[in-house]
């Protein structure tokens, strides 16, 4: 039987740089084909070829054995190929039903029937979302369901998922995987791109690894252990992923939070962080981790409680006050909050602390270049020129620019919110090394992460949040995913006795 889709010898270069070189890729009906590789390996470019968004320089696209020339995304959709991108393409102000049938609306619209059909599609996926609801009111997970329903409404034979679980909580991600399995069983061919290898292993029938615009190999999950897959991706075994944790020398207390209440439903949070310590903040997405971080950083208002920084009362009302007191935040939304994407790398690095490189409000160019160059080397940021915009960098290097910005302020406390989200495996390791280095330099570090392996690999202890409360604390012998989830999901558990002062 001919493969559903066959890409043969695809080559594509942008302005003389090879993004894809001689790539062969095929997809059968009723299979999930996992696609992994570091950022910049060419996964997304390949899927954009498949989705008709870009035309390859050379190579053939065969659909069910016949050579086809895709003229654009609309053409690909007509032939039954849907790509669900990381950044969703829904119209936020339209209803669920309108979004599902957008682009395929008949001239005379029978809204009642359309809503009925939308409800059917969504129920086929095992969800119950009102077809009349406005998309901007839905959770990210539900928006993703709408995207899938939209693809299904077009008699789709191929669906490409590009990092679909990156923005989902653990529970929602599980449901999405169930949906994908259902789609596979009904004969749809699925390409699944993810950095989360456990997911790939769970659902993929075959896995293709890409690196530097080429296919490294296509393997089956049964015959390939995780660490050899990672080695294919980066040329480095798994055991080195978290790096060697240096001996921690815990010093005096830097931050103490007592009975913190926030207007957005966070109640009675108390903890302390000391110098040289890496403290994790775990729990489900939406449990209040980010809110606590933002409150400590002065980005959101506080409604009650007490904070102490370096033995002095600390109540920042703006991020400016927090930065001046020696606190830094690497926010979870890197592109929206961490960096100015269009601005030069150099300018991003010195943004939070320009004092050492300015005189009377004007930059001293040589001093600035020198300082930035030192940080680039020290953090091993891979770039062409420090005068390129940050947008020219890969996700991991962008994150390092955010880190460089805070290294430059020399904070006493640094909070990292999902520091490795959308970062490839190789850069993850380097970011972990930097976190260790911050602690070794005597800074207090708070790490928020939805990846439990990351919390356990990185932190000395992990505070677990659930529904706006601090539910408990885990230390090394108890570093187990189940314990963390149980704590986070348990209801009405009294806060630990010694924390109720």
């Amino acid at each position, binding site marked *: 039987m001919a493969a559903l889709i066959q890409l043969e010898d695809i080559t594509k270069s942008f*302005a*003389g*740089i*090879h993004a894809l070189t001689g790539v062969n890729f095929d997809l059968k009906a009723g299979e999930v084909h996992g696609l992994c590789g570091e950022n*910049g390996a060419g996964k997304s470019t390949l899927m954009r070829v498949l989705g008709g968004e870009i035309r390859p320089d050379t190579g053939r696209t065969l659909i069910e054995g016949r050579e086809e020339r895709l003229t654009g995304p609309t053409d690909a959709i007509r032939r039954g190929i849907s790509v669900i991108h990381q950044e969703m393409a829904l119209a936020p102000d339209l209803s669920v039903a309108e979004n599902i049938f957008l682009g395929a609306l008949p001239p005379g619209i029978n809204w009642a029937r359309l809503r009925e059909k939308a409800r059917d599609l969504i129920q086929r996926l095992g969800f119950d979302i009102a077809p009349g609801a406005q998309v901007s009111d839905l959770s990210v997970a539900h928006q993703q369901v709408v995207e899938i329903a939209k693809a299904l409404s077009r008699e789709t034979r191929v669906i490409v998922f590009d990092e679909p679980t990156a923005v989902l909580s653990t529970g929602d991600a599980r449901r999405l995987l169930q949906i994908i399995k259902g789609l596979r069983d009904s004969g749809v061919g699925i390409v699944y791109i993810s950095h989360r290898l456990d997911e790939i292993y769970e659902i993929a029938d075959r896995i293709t690894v890409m690196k*530097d615009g080429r296919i490294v190999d296509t393997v089956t999950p049964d015959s390939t252990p995780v660490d050899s897959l990672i080695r294919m991706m980066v*040329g480095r075994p798994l055991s080195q992923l978290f790096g060697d944790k240096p001996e921690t020398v815990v010093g005096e207390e830097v931050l103490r939070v007592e009975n913190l209440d926030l207007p957005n439903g966070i109640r009675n949070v108390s903890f302390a962080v000391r110098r040289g310590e890496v403290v994790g903040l775990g729990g489900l997405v939406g449990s209040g981790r980010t809110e606590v971080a933002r409150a400590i*950083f002065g*980005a959101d208002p506080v409604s009650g409680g007490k904070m102490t920084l370096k033995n002095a009362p600390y109540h920042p009302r*703006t*991020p*400016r006050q*927090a*930065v*001046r007191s020696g606190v830094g*935040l690497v*926010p979870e939304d890197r592109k*929206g*909050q*961490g*960096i*100015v*994407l*269009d*601005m030069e790398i150099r*300018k991003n690095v010195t*943004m*939070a602390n*320009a004092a050492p490189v*300015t005189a009377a*409000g*004007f*930059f001293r*160019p040589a001093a600035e270049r020198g300082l930035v160059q030192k940080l680039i080397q020290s953090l091993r940021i*891979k*770039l*062409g*020129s420090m005068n*390129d915009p940050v947008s*020219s960098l890969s996700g991991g290097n962008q994150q390092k620019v955010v880190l460089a*910005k805070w290294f430059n*302020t020399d904070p006493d406390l640094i909070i990292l919110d999902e520091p490795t989200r959308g970062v490839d495996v190789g850069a993850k390791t380097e970011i972990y090394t930097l976190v260790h280095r911050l602690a070794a330099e005597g800074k207090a570090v708070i790490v928020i992460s939805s990846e439990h392996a990351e919390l356990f690999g990185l932190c000395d202890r992990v505070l677990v949040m659930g529904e706006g409360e601090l539910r408990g604390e885990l230390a090394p012998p108890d570093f187990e995913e189940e314990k963390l989830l149980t704590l986070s999901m348990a209801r009405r558990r009294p806060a630990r006795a010694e924390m109720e002062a």
Partner: protein
Amino acid sequence: MTEKAATFDEVQTRRRFNFSKAFRQYGTAVIFLLLVLVAQAQSDAFLTERNVMNVLRQMSGIGVMAIGMLYVILTRGIDLSVGSIAALGSVTTAIVVQSYPMPVALAMVVGMGALCGLVSGFLIAFFRLPAFVITLAMMTAARGVALILSNGQPITLGEAGQSLQGFGTSFSLGIPNPALLMIGLFVLAFIVLNFSRFGRLVKAIGSNEEAVRLSGISVPWYVMSVYVISGALAAVAGVLVTSRSGVGSASVGAGNELDVIAAVVIGGASLMGGSGGVINTFIGVMILGVIGNIMNLAGVPGYHQQVYLGVIIVVAVLIQNGSTLLRR
């Protein structure tokens, strides 16, 4: 293995020729040169020193206001009140020169413009009110105050304002003084935008306000400041107009806000904030001046000129975004 990876990184990050960037950076200059060529072919009178100096002098008020407008637009804002503040500047100049020494009088006028900007900027930056509405209100109010102060009548500078009028109508280094002042302010604005912390943050705020705020920078102060600058420069423009005509009038600068915005946009600045430059804004001002000048020299009637101007603005913006259009 390592060696191969290194070369790949190199290739990936090598500086490549970026069409869209080139269009944005040099598109304005190319349009300007084309216009000059057309103008020269049209009329021998165009490239005479007298005519060039004329264009520079005519555009000095618009140019000075365009500097402030560029700063405002870089933060993703808009300032509709510049024409009215220029009118208020013009009227107050004619009034205060009668009773104060010249430097004091000028400082008062510029301070008054800055105060107007401060009011708008404070409301926009700290109360997060829409710039369009607030400066629209300031546009109405400032013009109203100018009308009240002048009683709707032009006020002549007279004896007391002779030194000012002397400045406005004479030349230094062969260039009309108002044009020289405009050029000086453009140079200053260039230095501030490109080399100062303030300029850098103004641009950064327009690109990603939240990232700047979360870097520990007090965004509202910077946003407010650009409106103060815009107001002060609008008042300067009012002084320039008055120095040339010898009359303070509440009808100065009517509709100028649109010319100023057009000049900044022709200069390639994005109304979405974060992108735009001082040199291109200057060229944008000159393009606007040259277009009017060509049509005058060619004897195009005034009403027709407005239609052509509209078309030319669209063409200019199309050329700057040419690369995006070509890619489709």
